[in-house]
């Protein structure tokens, strides 16, 4: 089993490719990308639709496996993990936020946020406190008993964020978290992500096609085009504002 002892990296992708066969055509969704994400870093994966950014995110989140190459996280090579180990990785180390929120419509907010705790077999007595804590963090503690359909888009995304945080993961993967929101609400969510990054010291990888948001909130921006990494660099503006802060 391949492992990495370099704990300064939260996630490391080494020559990762993900190819799909579509009839006679071979689609290279991700093509030989190497990327290292440091612990506590806020990385924005920037690119247009079909650039491979979501595919790369899914592989780093343990939802998909690379066709070739390795992804190291938590000191383990995800490609070599069994399905059960990958599930545990997603459950314990990863929090995920999606563009379409992906809350279960028939459950209340409280039940939605409680779901990862059920999967992690957390004691029932401990759950209520953890759920409340997560919802307080996203300022939704008063909407416990509401169903997703009774919430605004921004509130739903905040609830999804609470669900992603409730198991206290080290990594947060966000796939176009502002894609379904208006710009003001999108900015609100971005502020929340940044706040979480700073207060909890989490590593955040966010997929977006909105350059301005990436420029304003990400520590580092990696741009993808046609499955390839075309640029990767420190976001100077954020660094400057950090210094000013």
């Amino acid at each position: 089993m391949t492992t990495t002892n370099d704990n300064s990296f939260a996630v490391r992708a080494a020559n990762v490719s993900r190819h799909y066969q579509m009839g006679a055509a071979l689609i290279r969704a991700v093509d030989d990308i190497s990327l290292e994400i440091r612990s506590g870093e806020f990385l924005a994966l920037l690119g247009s639709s079909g650039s491979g950014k979501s595919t790369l995110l899914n592989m780093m989140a343990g939802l998909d496996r690379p066709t070739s190459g390795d992804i190291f996280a938590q000191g383990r090579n995800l490609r070599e993990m069994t399905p059960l180990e990958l599930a545990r990785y997603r459950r314990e180390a990863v929090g995920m936020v999606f563009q379409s929120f992906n809350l279960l419509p028939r459950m209340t907010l409280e039940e939605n946020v409680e779901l990862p705790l059920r999967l992690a077999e957390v004691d029932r007595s401990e759950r209520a406190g953890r759920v409340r804590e997560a919802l307080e963090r996203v300022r939704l503690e008063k909407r416990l008993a509401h169903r997703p359909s009774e919430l605004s888009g921004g509130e739903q995304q905040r609830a999804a964020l609470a669900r992603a945080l409730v198991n206290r993961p080290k990594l947060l993967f966000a796939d176009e978290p502002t894609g379904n929101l208006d710009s003001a609400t999108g900015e609100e969510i971005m502020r929340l992500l940044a706040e979480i990054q700073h207060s909890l010291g989490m590593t955040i990888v966010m997929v977006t096609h909105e350059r301005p948001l990436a420029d304003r909130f990400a520590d580092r921006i990696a741009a993808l085009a046609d499955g390839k990494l075309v640029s990767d660099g420190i976001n100077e503006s954020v660094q400057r504002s950090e210094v000013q802060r």
Partner: protein
Amino acid sequence: MKSSDLGELAVRNLRESFLRNSLTTLGVAVGIASLVAMLSLGVGLQELASKRLSQSGLFDTVVVMSRANVRGFGRPPRDDSAPKQPSPPLDAAARKEMEKLPNVVEVYPQIRFITEARFADASYSAMVAGVPDSARTSGAFDGIDGRFFSSATADEAILQVEFAKDLSPQPSTLLGKDLVLRYAERQALGPQAGANDRTVLDANGATKPNTSGAKSNTAKTTDAAGSGFSIVPRQRKLRIVGIVETEPAAGFGGFGSGRLLIPLKVAETLRAAQANDLRDIVRGSGSESTFASLTVRVNKPSQVEAIETTIKSMGFSTFSLLDATRNLRIFFAVFDLLLAIFGSLALAVATLGIVNTLVMAILERRREIGILKALGAADRDVKQLFFVEAGVMGLLGGFLGVGFGWLIGQAVTFGTNVYLKQQNLPPAHVFSVPWWLVLGAIGFGVIVSLAAGLYPASRAARLNPVEALRYE
């Protein structure tokens, strides 16, 4: 995921598509109900037949005969090299010995003799049979017109209806009337017995003292040692207390061949000459009376085999209908199996319903499965969730099905009894829902439902989370 969480989520999911899941559960319930109804009918009929047969005394009795009695009748001797055991006499001592055996309820001789009954100045030939007092509670006389004997020693008679019809065209009018039984009593003779003690029958059948001192072949028999018995005509007045419609316990080991039934103890005190008396004389058993056969009744049919073995080791021949009970059990096992197969057809259809419901649920909940997997659910968790949903439907369907099956049983019993009443027949319980069937049916419902959930559950578990999340 913890099982409590699995159960909670499964019930929640089932509630979401309430109508569809209810209809699927109802399908399972109908399947289980048909299975329960069929098997209950089989069990009920089996119990009915077993009850009748156990009442007949056919299967819990062993008929014991002296070994000397069994061979003969032109049959060649048994070809075995084993040394022949001496055959002890089947007498009162042997009877007592058998009574002491464990699990033996009673031992009684089969007393049957053909004699003459006089009623209303007319004579009728009748086979008299002794009835043990235990027949009072065995149910063999349940359908009696009148009553059973008031006591084991009462001078009373029960007539078989055909015989009663010979006596009177309206048999029920015979109840409470008397008839006279005329029979030949066997009296033991010692070697020194005087000729004057003996009686002979005259040409008309009347008793008269043998005053001439001449030996009469018909009246007295003696063996070489000088022992023997004489035949003395006797009569006994008996009150008719009951008439039985059908022959109770007709056939083997019972007293069914009798047309005139009297208490066994009374029959024993009559000491009526029987067919085996002449054989005793020929064999030189003398004045010691032996039984033609003894009926040994045991606690349960299952104990018959052990008792038979023990009695055989005592040197007697035995006969029971053990093989017949075995065949009967085989018959009902096959009968129940066939009923179960027919009953299961509805359950098979219901199984397809479960598969259909769960496959539909996978399509509908594809995205939900993707979310669960993204949140860290393992394939096993997803599979178990669908399994539990199938199991809950099976469990609820099982409970409902048993209830429906029981209701069907009540309806069938009611309908059957209405029909039986129209046919002037006593009511019968043709339906029986034992506990093992209730628990078995519910368990079977759950197992079948789980089997039905096997394919959908594994299909759900195999879903690719990325594709599932993309599904709209």
